[in-house]
């Protein structure tokens, strides 16, 4: 950003102008060749194809990764980049709608009892250090994911009974019970094949700092808290990919700085961009918001063990006092979407027939009066300090609920105190959010149905037997249509319980330079950068 340096932005402006002019000339000269613009976009620099792309693309993030070991890591900041380094047998498609083979030659052969999945693996696979992928690596990868005690992701693989690898290109996974979610679970990042020899060499602690896989990139340098640089895997199985040699994840903690650095060309992609900034960038000439759909949904959990909230009429009154559209408008500047159920909107099992709440203040007041609280009451909402998005939702809710006399008090706690209060269910209401780690609702349902994990997602409600039965059926059902019907009933059940006030879903908050192509973030959040490229600036 030096005042005396020609910064890249102004340089590109010039280059863009040149590009536009030559494109015009090309049009005028040969009357509309399709290739006219592409050549010009290389900035007039002739050379091999590789050199027409920028060597490095810099991505600004609010936080740094803290653990690159997929099995022991926690948090999206780590998870999102695993698809760059690791490949599993299967993967979700870029749009998140289907599951496709990745290192497997094809989709697996499934035995008639639905318990055994047999994969034929592509041959000749190499890790980024040049060593061959062996049967031992596959077996070790699976077993480590399935047995590491302090892994937060065991639940996604706990239906796997055992894994056999008779040779380097065959993997046979045996389930405990037949489950529709098995294919989705096989896409989970902990099952991306990793090198056992490397792990044995460096040990578990060092493994957190760098891992080796078969993905398009490998770790080059990591200065913790500052930047993490990935470089092209020289042994990547697809010739000519990835297009960009280096990806640098740079920590730019401050939201304003990240925006300014994006605009000045210090970074090329910004993540965690506040919605207000995305709105503002819509009119920028160089960069643009890139709201990829996500699985994120937000709702308010009402603790049914609270003296007021134990009354279903009171809960319904709060539903009717809530205006999700106003929340979308005021907190996401239109980027969010109102929802009628807490299921991820990108999931095929999301019941789109459930409508977002239509507020009805009069009816809400009636219900409250009927419940014996004509003058309302005071209630707290547990919030995490420093989370501006949650705080702004709470502020709008506070205003909405005050119309029926409910005084919502923001109980903001420092991050760990917040987790601790949440774990002990020391709360009246809380803003909850969910994002899937697998393209299947079973993981989410486990968080709600297994009371010990989240107190029924902070509703304080142990799900009744009929709901539990529905969930068990849904877990086992292989037929997608029948399964949809089961999940529909479950979602209707939540709606009737009035424990989760559905608010909104949001897209990923990215903003990128307009000349970048191939930026993919799947609904699960995985970056896919094989074809990510930006024209070289020099």
């Amino acid at each position, binding site marked *: 950003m030096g005042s005396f340096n020609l910064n890249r932005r102004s340089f590109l402006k010039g280059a863009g102008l040149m590009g536009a002019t030559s494109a015009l000339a090309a049009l005028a000269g040969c009357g509309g060749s399709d290739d006219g613009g592409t050549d010009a976009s290389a900035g007039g620099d002739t050379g091999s194809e590789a050199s027409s792309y920028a060597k490095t693309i810099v991505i600004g993030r609010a936080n740094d990764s803290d653990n690159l070991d997929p099995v022991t890591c926690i948090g999206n900041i780590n998870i999102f980049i695993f698809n760059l380094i690791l490949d599993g047998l299967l993967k979700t498609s870029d749009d998140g709608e289907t599951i496709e083979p990745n290192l497997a030659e094809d989709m697996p052969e499934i035995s008639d009892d639905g318990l055994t999945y047999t994969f034929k693996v592509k041959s000749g696979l190499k890790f980024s250090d040049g060593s061959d992928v062996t049967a031992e690596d596959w077996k070790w990868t699976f077993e480590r994911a399935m047995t590491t005690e302090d892994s937060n992701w065991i639940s996604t693989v706990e239906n796997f009974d055992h894994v056999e690898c008779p040779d380097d290109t065959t993997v046979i996974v045996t389930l405990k019970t037949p489950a529709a979610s098995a294919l989705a679970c096989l896409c989970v990042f902990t099952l991306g094949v990793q090198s056992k020899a490397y792990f044995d060499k460096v040990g578990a602690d060092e493994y957190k700092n760098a891992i080796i896989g078969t993905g398009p990139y490998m770790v080059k340098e990591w200065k913790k808290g500052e930047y993490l640089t990935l470089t092209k895997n020289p042994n990547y199985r697809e010739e000519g990919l990835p297009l960009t040699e280096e990806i640098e994840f740079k920590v730019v903690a401050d939201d304003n700085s990240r925006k300014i650095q994006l605009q000045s060309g210090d970074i090329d992609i910004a993540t965690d961009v506040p919605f207000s900034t995305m709105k503002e960038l819509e009119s920028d000439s160089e960069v643009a918001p890139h709201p990829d759909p996500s699985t994120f949904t937000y709702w308010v959990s009402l603790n049914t063990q609270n003296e007021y909230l134990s009354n279903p009429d009171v809960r319904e009154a709060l539903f009717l006092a809530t205006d999700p559209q106003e929340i979308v408008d005021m907190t996401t500047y239109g980027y969010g979407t109102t929802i009628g159920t807490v299921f991820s909107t990108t999931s095929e099992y999301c019941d789109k027939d459930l409508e977002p709440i239509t507020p009805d203040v009069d009816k809400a007041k009636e219900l409250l009066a009927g419940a014996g609280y004509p003058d309302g009451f005071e209630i707290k909402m547990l919030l995490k300090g420093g989370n501006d998005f949650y705080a702004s939702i709470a502020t709008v809710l*506070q205003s909405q609920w005050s119309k029926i006399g409910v005084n919502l008090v923001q109980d903001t706690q420092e991050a760990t105190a917040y987790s601790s209060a949440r774990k002990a269910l020391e709360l009246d209401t809380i803003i909850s959010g969910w994002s899937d780690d697998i393209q299947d609702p079973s993981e989410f349902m486990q968080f709600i149905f297994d009371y010990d994990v989240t107190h029924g997602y902070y509703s304080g409600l142990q799900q009744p037997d009929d709901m539990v039965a529905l969930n068990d059926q849904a877990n086992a059902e292989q037929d997608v249509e029948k399964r949809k019907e089961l999940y529909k009933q479950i979602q209707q059940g939540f709606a009737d319980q009035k424990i989760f006030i559905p608010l909104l879903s949001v897209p990923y908050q990215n903003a990128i330079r307009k000349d970048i192509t191939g930026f993919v973030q799947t609904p699960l959040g995985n970056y896919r950068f094989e074809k990510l490229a930006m024209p070289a600036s020099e």
Partner: protein
Amino acid sequence: MSQSDDKGFKADATPTPAGEAAAELAATAEEASQPEKRLSPFRRSPSLLVGTIIVAFFVLMALFPQLFTSGDPYALDGSQMLLPPSADHLMGTDNFGYDIWTRVVYATSLDLIIGVASVSLPFVVGVLLGLLAGYYGGKLDSIIMRVLDCFVAFPFMVLAIAIVAILGSGVRNLIIAMWVVSWPEYTRLVRAEVLVAKQSEYVQAAKTLGYSDLRIMFRHILPNVISSSVVYAASDVVMCIMTGAGMSFLGLGVPQPTPEWGAIISGGKSFITTAPWISILPGLMMAVVGLGLSLVGDGLNDLLRTKD
């Protein structure tokens, strides 16, 4: 030299500047009956006059916010988001469509309460400890000063965060955190001056007359050593409000949507490029309050020293 500046001089055997000042103060106390003292304090110190007017203005605003704005500080308005200052919205609006001027006005009472409440207890406790440490010296002094050393060894922000994390956020706990972090300054100030005052003739005289320690401490020493703490307290009020703002910045201050200056300023941080008025204008108000209190402090200092 200005009293409000010597925050916490350490007392060495050599005369410290604070010590000299204290000696001067002792001298002033003895002059208390001179005729020029009868002049109105405001006439003798224009700083005090200006400062008092400013502070009085804000006290008025705290007591009668309706006189300054007709708006509702809690009126959220989706159609009025992020508007720049105008005749309708003197300080513009924020991302909730809140009228910032209205919120700044309504925040005055809370902020003044935070400032005064945060300072009062540390003032009393800090001065007492300083008095005891300085007067008795020896073991008691060592113990008090080592405890103090431990307190000042932590960056106060960290101590404040830890306390708020233990107690939870909110105005009351914020004030408690402030109590814990701000007493050492007063103890240091008073102790340094007591060490000097102890050697002065009037104390020696009182001792030879056989007065009790309590009487000497409170009747003879305290009036002569307290002025620098009073002056410091005026600026400490501003510092406490600022620390509260810092806590809001970390998300641990006064929760939304309660109007509070620090919270308003930090709430505007996400919008400094698009709506800088959210942070700048309320900050300006705080600076004016600070100016008022600093002037009062200066004025008191002028009055109490009267060397020139």
